[in-house]
Structure formats: C-alpha cells, structure tokens
C-alpha cells in the first residue's frame, strides 16, 4: 500500500486531526473568502486580516476530506505574517509541485505570474502534499484552500 502512505503522510494526518488556526475573524476588518469543490462537497473558508500588505492573522473554517482540510491548515501556517507578495510566491510554488497552472477557484487560468523567483521559496512541510500527485482526483482537494487564497489576495489588492 505504498501509494496510500504517500498520500496520507503523518504530517498531513496531524494537520487533519489537529487543524491549526481554525476558527473565524470578524469581517470587517478581516476579509472572508470561500471555496467549494462541487464534486465532493468540500468547502474551505479563509479569513485574512491584512495590515499594510502583510497577513497579520489567518483563520480557516469549512469542512471536508483530510486532504482539503490538512492542506488549508498547512497553508495557514505557511502564510501567517507574510507579505502578500510572499504569500503569492508560496502559493505559486505550492501549485508548481502539483504541476498545475495558477488558477482561481473557477478554474480560470490567472497566469503563472513572474516565475523563476519561486524556486527559492522553501515549502517545508508543504512538500509532503506532493504525494497527492499520484491521485489526480485529489489534486482539487489539495488546492481548494489555495485557490481561495488567490482570489482573496486579488480582492484585497484591488481595494
């Protein structure tokens, strides 16, 4: 069952069992974004509190499978305290390891952006999610929260 071990790494199961930054933030001042996977009904709610181009606080809500929820939890740790630009770079680097182009939650390609730089981004624990690659139907679960992040940052940038 080597395949399953690649998918359900200990670090992933740990984030699933004990999700980090779980909860909500008052909106405003925080920004709320939500994404659904219509195939399986998973949803991820992302609360971002921005402070001058920096993500000052993150909370995650929603329900779903281990991969969607663990990935969102890991994302919350990775982007906490980062600038929008850094968060975008992490987002891009993460999606690169799943080798899919940067898309918004409607599946629209929003451009891979100025790549190259993100080779330097260290993904740390997030690397564990690469095992999802072997299970193509689960890639949508792994990227659900990240697509919400793309949309949320776009909205925050435009206001």
């Amino acid at each position, binding site marked *: 069952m080597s395949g399953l071990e690649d*998918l359900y790494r200990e670090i992933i199961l740990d984030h699933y069992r004990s999700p980090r930054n779980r909860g909500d933030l008052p909106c405003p001042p925080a920004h709320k974004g939500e994404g659904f996977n219509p195939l399986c009904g998973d*949803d991820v709610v992302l609360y971002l509190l921005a402070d001058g181009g920096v993500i000052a606080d993150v909370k995650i809500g929603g329900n779903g499978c281990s991969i969607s929820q663990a990935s969102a939890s890991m994302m919350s740790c990775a982007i906490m305290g980062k600038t929008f630009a850094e968060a975008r770079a992490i987002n891009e680097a993460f999606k690169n390891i799943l080798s899919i182009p940067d898309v918004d939650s409607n599946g629209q390609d929003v451009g891979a952006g100025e790549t190259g730089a993100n080779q330097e981004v260290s993904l740390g624990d997030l690397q564990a999610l690469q095992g999802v690659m072997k299970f193509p139907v689960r890639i949508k679960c792994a990227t659900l929260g990240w697509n919400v992040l793309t949309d949320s940052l776009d909205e925050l940038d435009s206001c």
Partner: protein
Amino acid sequence: MTTTDAAAAADAHTAAADAHTPAASPVPAPLDGAKLKADFPLLTREINGQPIVYLDSAATSQKPHSVIAAMSDYYDRYNANVHRSAYFIAEQATTQTELARQKVRRFIGAAHTEEIIFTKNATEALNLVVNSWGRTNLANGDAVLLSLLEHHSNIVPWHILSAERNLELRWIPVGDDFQLDLSNLDELLEGVKVVAISAMSNVLGTLPPVSAIAEAAHERGAVVVCDACQFVPNRVCDVASLGADFVAFSGHKMCGPTGIGVLWGRRELLEEMPPFLGGGEMILDVSTEGFLPNTLPWKFEAGTPPIAEMVGLGAAVDYLSGVGMEAIAAYEEDLVAYAQKTLKDKFGDDIAIHGPADGPRGGSISFAYRDIHPHDVSQILDQYGVCVRAGHHCAKPLMKHLGAQATARASLYLYNTREDIDCLAEALSKASEIF
C-alpha cells in the same frame, strides 16, 4: 421503408418472439451472481493487483459482452442512418432500432410502442417533460410537489421553469426511518398540478409507494412524473401498476450503453404535448411558413438518434429479461440484507447506514464510517480494488436533511456477490489503520 413500415416489421418480429416465450414460471430461478460476473468483461480486470470489486452500479452499471457485441455488430455490419433511405443496411438499422423500442415497451409493460421515446438519458427525459408538458400546462404560481429524495435531475428542471413561472415547489419530507413521510400528503397535494417522485432512491435505497401516491395525486387531477432511473434496472417495472403518467430512466444503469435514456408517457398526454427539440426526424413537413410535427414517438426524437445505443439498450433488455427481473430483485434484496448485517456485525456503532434498516429496499448503501471523510474512505477502498462512490450523489437537498456534506455509497447489482461484500468490509477495516 417508411417509419411506419419499420415499426410494423418490428412489431411482427416481436409478436413472433412473444409467441415463443415460455409462460413465466411463478418461482424465479435463483440467480448466481458469481456466474453472471463472467458475462461482464470489465469485471475480470484487476485494480492495484487485485480483482476489481465494483460497487458503484447506482452510478452506472457494467455492460455484458452481449451488449458490447450488439453495438459493434451495428458498426461492423449495418451502420447507416435510420428512417431515411431504402437501401438494405439502412432498412436493417431502422428495423433494429424499432425492434429495440419494442423490447423496451415489453420490458416496462407499456401498452403502446409509440409511448416509448428515446432520449439521451433520464435527465433529458425529465427535461422533456418539464419543458413540453410543464411549459404548456403550468401557469404562474402553480404548485409542484417533489420528494426530498429526488436526484438533481428531477429538481433542477422544475427550478428552471419556476424561475419563469414562479412555481410553488413543495416537498414530501423524509422521516427518521428513511421513508417518505406521507402523513400530510393530503395537505401537500392541495391544489398541486404535478407530482415528481423517484421510485427508488439512489442514495438511501428507499422504495417510495409510487402507486399509492399516484392514486392520491390523480384524485386531485395532478399528473405524476416518476424518476425510475434506479427502479427499472433493479425491479420488475410495469408502468400500468406503477400508476405514474411519465416514467424516465437511463440505459447505462441497466447494463446498456451511455447516451440513451427512455421517457415513457401516456399516449393521450404525449399526443397533446408540443415538441421539445426541433430538427430532422421530428417533422412530417416543413415550409418557409412553419412545420408539421411527426407522429409519436418521433415527434420527440429530433435529429439522428443514438443508433448503436438503441441497439445496445435492446440487447441489455434481452440480457436482463434472460436473467429475469424477479430473480434479480430477489437476489439483490438478499445481498443488501447480507451487506447490512455484515457491516453492522463487523463495525457496530462505527458505521452508520443512511437507509431503511430492514424490509424491502434498493441496493444503494450510503454510510458514514467513524469520522473518516467519505472521500478518504473511497480512496482507501480503491487501493483494495473496491470501487465505491463518495459525494453528494446529486441529491443535495436530501444530503442537507441527513446533515451530511457527503456520504460513501456502495451500490449492488446482479453481478455482485457475498464475497464482494466481504472485500468491502475487509478494506474498510484497513481505513481504521490509517485514520
């Protein structure tokens, strides 16, 4: 050959077949699922090094060799458009497709061949009813009664029409026993123009009392639309005793191909209804001023039909009739009882089955296993070659009532065996080792 000649030829053929059919024996011959498996090429496959255990027949069934062969025979030997030309293979194609219509008529006990309308699937059949009958007969503010068990295909078309006509959609609730709660049926039926109900739930396996509901609806002058997508493949279907006015189902869930479905409707109603889609095949005459629609059933079959699929569906009906629908129903009842007992005995309170615990029920077993998400359950089962579906099963209003975002669903058919159920239980126990 004209369409009418083709139908007559097909009729003569069926009459001959009818004459040679031995009288139905009162006790169905018991069915051997393990033996039937050999008829289905796909079921000999291995997945992840293990024999496939296919438990997703409510989504789509596997196809027996005879169906696949009938379809390739059409392409190999008599591929031609139907109802259009006088040459030999075109006549053969026309005769074979009309023969398939006859087979379906007999299979569901319809009185008239022209009541059998071929569509793309059950979804298109239901959309046909809503668009043609609904648009003609429903006025602003009219009430439609649905059940909470419905598949999206028997909900969304009504929502779409409602956006134009401001229909009042009412819902028959589902009780704690997973049966329709009919205690307020009289009130719910008050002033209702149409009742749209499923004959077998694709999520819970519930078998609503369609004929009783239809009788009550008819007393109020309402028309009854029945989604028999799960019912027709698994139970003896006799449209006369079912009592509905329209019945929809899909070929691909009854051992037939995808791309073909059936709408049966009472002839009097179908005759009054305007065409749904326009184009070739569905007209008698067209001028610069207008058109004259064709007679039934072709009035509702615009464009070149799915010819190979009609032939394939005919072969599927032959296959199911050969095994015997009574035997299939009895076998599935036994197997679903075995499955429920096996899962309960092995997992106790760790498993919750959303569906009637005993009594007659269909072969869909939706369950929650511990607090493991259904998506993860199905992923782990897949590693053991066990195919089950996870999700909302296109029944979101029902899922909301169950308080579940998603469920895992194992669904049975004639080729499943007790060993398949044992494999499911065994694979499920592995999920505990990971979570």
